[in-house]
């Protein structure tokens, strides 16, 4: 069987690229190492609860906003139902010794509330929010009217960090920290986060905030149904092991782990970029490029607790909680709390995510899921107990937490087949050159969170960017605009 395009990786970016290319009439195959598509979006079920692992909430999903248009363009909208988050406070920040601060939906309301909370900082607040708006307006896919050209080779790598940008506007530490809490949505500290990236992540959240009924699982299933509808061949349960070339150096296919050969003229690879050098013969990539891919740093690792509240409550219905530690610790002690899934029957299941210091679980890196040493289990139990204590202190209305499962960076690594298990793949930080979509191999394109941007929006966007490289960005943007 021979294809026009083989997509490696059945996560949000791969599913997007496969769908778009098939919609353009290309013959497409997709290979996913897991036994089912989109394992991170899919989450898992324990007892009466379904726990989302990848998708919790997003911006850009209001009618006519960018992710809504992307989903329409992908033919997914009919299968998805959105659920709006609490307009009066979708993210609630709890800090020691302070009243809760709630981020309302809508930039004007946010500005108004911040100004009320921080008298004397009005100029800083409106100035900073204007910077966020400006940074979003130059992105040719976040703003469909923005010029296509302009994002040069070094886009996002040079320039200002979030921390520098905040310091330009205000020296108020608590205000700075409030504007930084959403760095947790892409796992890069404010000193390293490119402001342009931060703006492109938070900008859409300042406009509207939604979940999906049925959570990430609903999105995974909508994609799966769409792929079937489009006649895309799906190879599950075996990864791509090796890319194959003709003697003249032209890409001709891929060998899968079970020996199957898939012939193709082009490939969109969405796996972790550090895995790529091991899949091509010596000499295909330059030594410096190989080394760059291998050395890419991941986004922050995290400890995740999946649990059930002991008391029925609606604290996490349509809203998330950020529990912060003392101001001088910055965001180090942050715990992000969200509902287990955002369906109407989500009950009182919850997911708590806390950043881990890099390397925290390195001691056990040679072990694999299902065969970890007792010390690792003890470490997880200790982390979980610590988290439960802090959650119970910070959110007494939950009535205590019963722990269902826990995960570390090692869990994510083994589950998602990434080298290190950072929550959002390769980190976007100042000074690190993440790979571009194009490679030296004609018709080998890269996509994924680390190549474009983090989160579901970033992953879907990256699928669009890869497809735009194939069919032309102007043409693809017209397709998106036609969905308005």
């Amino acid at each position, binding site marked *: 069987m021979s294809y026009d395009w083989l997509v490696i990786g059945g996560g949000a970016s791969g599913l997007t690229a496969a769908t778009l290319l098939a919609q353009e009439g290309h013959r497409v195959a997709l290979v996913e190492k897991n036994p089912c598509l989109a394992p991170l979006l899919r989450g898992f079920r324990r007892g009466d609860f379904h726990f989302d692992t990848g998708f919790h909430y997003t911006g850009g999903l209001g009618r006519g906003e960018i992710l809504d248009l992307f989903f329409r363009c992908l033919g997914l909208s009919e299968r998805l139902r959105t659920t709006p988050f609490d307009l009066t406070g979708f993210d609630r920040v709890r800090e020691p010794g302070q009243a809760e601060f709630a981020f309302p939906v809508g930039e004007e309301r946010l500005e108004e509330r911040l100004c009320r909370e921080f008298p004397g900082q009005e100029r800083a607040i409106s100035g900073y929010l204007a910077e966020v708006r400006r940074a979003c307006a130059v992105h040719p896919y976040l703003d469909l009217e923005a010029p296509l050209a302009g994002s040069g*080779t070094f886009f996002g790598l040079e320039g200002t960090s979030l921390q520098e940008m905040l310091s330009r506007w205000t020296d108020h530490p608590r205000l700075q920290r409030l504007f930084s809490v959403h760095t947790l949505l892409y796992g890069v500290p404010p000193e390293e986060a490119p402001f342009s990236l931060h703006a492109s992540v938070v900008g859409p959240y300042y406009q509207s905030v939604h979940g999906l009924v049925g959570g990430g699982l609903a999105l995974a299933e909508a994609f799966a149904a769409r792929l079937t509808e489009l006649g895309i061949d799906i190879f599950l349960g075996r990864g791509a092991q090796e890319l194959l070339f003709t003697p003249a150096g032209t890409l001709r296919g891929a060998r899968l782990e079970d020996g199957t050969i898939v012939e193709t003229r082009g490939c969109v690879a969405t796996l972790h970029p550090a895995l790529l050098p091991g899949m091509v013969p010596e000499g295909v990539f*330059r*030594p410096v490029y190989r080394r760059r891919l291998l050395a890419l740093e991941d986004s922050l690792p995290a400890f995740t607790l999946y649990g059930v509240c002991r008391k029925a409550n609606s604290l996490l219905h349509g809203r998330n909680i950020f529990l912060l530690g003392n101001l001088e610790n910055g965001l180090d002690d942050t715990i992000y709390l969200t509902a287990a899934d955002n369906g109407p029957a989500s009950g009182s299941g919850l997911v708590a995510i806390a950043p881990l210091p890099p390397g925290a679980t390195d001691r056990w890196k040679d072990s694999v899921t299902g065969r970890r040493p007792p010390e690792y289990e003890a470490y997880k139990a200790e982390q979980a107990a610590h988290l439960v204590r802090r959650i119970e202190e910070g959110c007494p209305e939950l009535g205590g937490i019963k722990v269902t499962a826990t995960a570390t960076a090692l869990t994510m690594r083994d589950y998602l087949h990434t080298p290190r298990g950072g929550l959002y793949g390769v980190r976007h930080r100042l000074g690190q050159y993440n790979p*571009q979509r194009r490679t030296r191999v004609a018709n080998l394109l890269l996509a994924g969170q680390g190549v474009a941007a983090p989160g579901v929006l970033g992953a879907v966007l990256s699928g669009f960017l890869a497809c735009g490289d194939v069919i032309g960005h102007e043409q693809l943007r017209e397709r998106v605009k036609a969905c308005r």
Partner: protein
Amino acid sequence: MTDQEIIERINTSLAEEFELDLADMVPEATIYEDLGLDSLDTVDMVIVLEAAFKFKIREETAIREIRTLGDIHNFVIDKYRRQDGAA
């Protein structure tokens, strides 16, 4: 470091990292046509030069004007001397 030492360091670093033949690395060689680099290699070229000389050049606009290997030599020598003067 003398100019010649700087040039040698540039040539050997680029030759090694981009698998180029040192014999082709004359100042007149154009980077894209003669040495066979392409625009995708620009990022890695910056990385190699930064690592070889322990300075940051990614934000310098002059790097975008470079056409020949000789341009790279002059750019790095100039940057090296300016940095030396500042130190």
